[in-house]
């Protein structure tokens, strides 16, 4: 018994340090599920399906509407900004390809939505020019929350939705390349890392069909 007590006393500091460390890292990573900034935002956001954030948007044609009011078809939504040199141009290219595929198939059940993360730099008329550059596809909406919006408050809404966005040391937006699917009832259904192909989207839509 005395020897056991000696062993226990010898093991206590090491075990206590391990428990403290385990608990600290467990808390910091939300149960060892989020080691990166991206996964932390996703894990700490409310699970889907859920309502999209209430953001007032102006599209490339000048119409103003609330994001949760999008109804009647599926929308694949992404975020970026026009002067972005990271993943945004790639995502725009992928959205353009999907738009062309939808047009070729005569589909009207799915549309695309790109929302700017830099409202001050990307006014509606700039979005209109880019939209025209891509051939003015009817099934692709480009929208902005408007120049007067509080950027940090707007980004905080996106973080609550499950998207990581912040600014770099020069003040430029940095963000993940997550895309979100909104169903015809206006509910955020799920998100994807990157842009899903039309085949993947069709599988998701098929699974959704009652």
């Amino acid at each position: 018994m005395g020897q056991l007590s000696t062993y226990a006393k010898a093991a206590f500091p090491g075990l206590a340090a391990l428990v403290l460390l385990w608990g600290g890292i467990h808390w910091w990573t939300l149960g060892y599920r989020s080691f990166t900034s991206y996964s932390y935002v996703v894990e700490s956001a409310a699970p889907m399906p859920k309502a999209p954030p209430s953001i007032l948007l102006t599209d490339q044609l000048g119409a103003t509407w609330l994001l949760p009011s999008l109804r009647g078809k599926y929308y694949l939504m992404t975020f970026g900004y026009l002067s972005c040199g990271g993943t945004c141009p790639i995502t725009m290219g992928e959205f353009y390809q999907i738009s062309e595929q939808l047009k070729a198939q005569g589909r009207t059940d799915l549309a695309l939505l790109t929302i700017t993360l830099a409202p001050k730099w990307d006014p509606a008329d700039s979005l209109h020019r880019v939209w025209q550059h891509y051939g003015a596809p009817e099934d692709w909406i480009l929208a902005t929350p408007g120049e007067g919006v509080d950027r940090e408050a707007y980004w905080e809404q996106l973080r609550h939705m499950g998207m990581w966005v912040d600014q770099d040391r020069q003040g430029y937006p940095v963000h993940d390349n997550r895309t979100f699917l909104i169903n015809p009832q206006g509910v955020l259904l799920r998100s994807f890392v990157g842009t899903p192909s039309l085949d993947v989207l069709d599988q998701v839509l098929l699974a959704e069909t009652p």
Partner: protein
Amino acid sequence: MKILSLGLFVLLSIPLVDFYLDGDMALQMLVQIPLLILAGTLLTGRFSHLLDPPKAFGLFILSLGVVFFWMIPRSLDLAVVGDGVDRLMHLCLFLAGLGLRTSLGPLNLMIRIAAGIYATAMWSAFALILFQSPAQVCARFTLAQQQSAGQAMLWAGGCFLTVHLLSSVVLLVRLGPKEHPST
């Protein structure tokens, strides 16, 4: 040594130096973090005699845990963007270095060898993740920076392991496994 330690810590905390080292992942991982730990280890003092081996082992685990915490990508991201968090990281790593120096003293040679191997394994595992991941792990650095940092860290880990194993073999042959290196 105290002046060298504190001088190194102050040098790494100068905003311009800090900004430069924070700007590239390889510089941060291979220069800033190791130098902050080194600054802590250089702060010599009469601390080791205060600890018996069990307490020293507890302090060793905590110190290594602090280093591990600041290698979590989310922690690194926060340190790069936030000045307060960055200062906290500097202080934590400096104290972790001091903790490692203090705790390794009372531990016997076999535990010190195992600790070195474990720390290298942890470092190399993180390096592999950075090097092999097709996606950005740290949001504050580009994918190219991340991969080159991972590759450099792998080389550094390999070099450290080689030196550590060679010096361990020499010490084991000279002193035997139960001996303390200072004896």
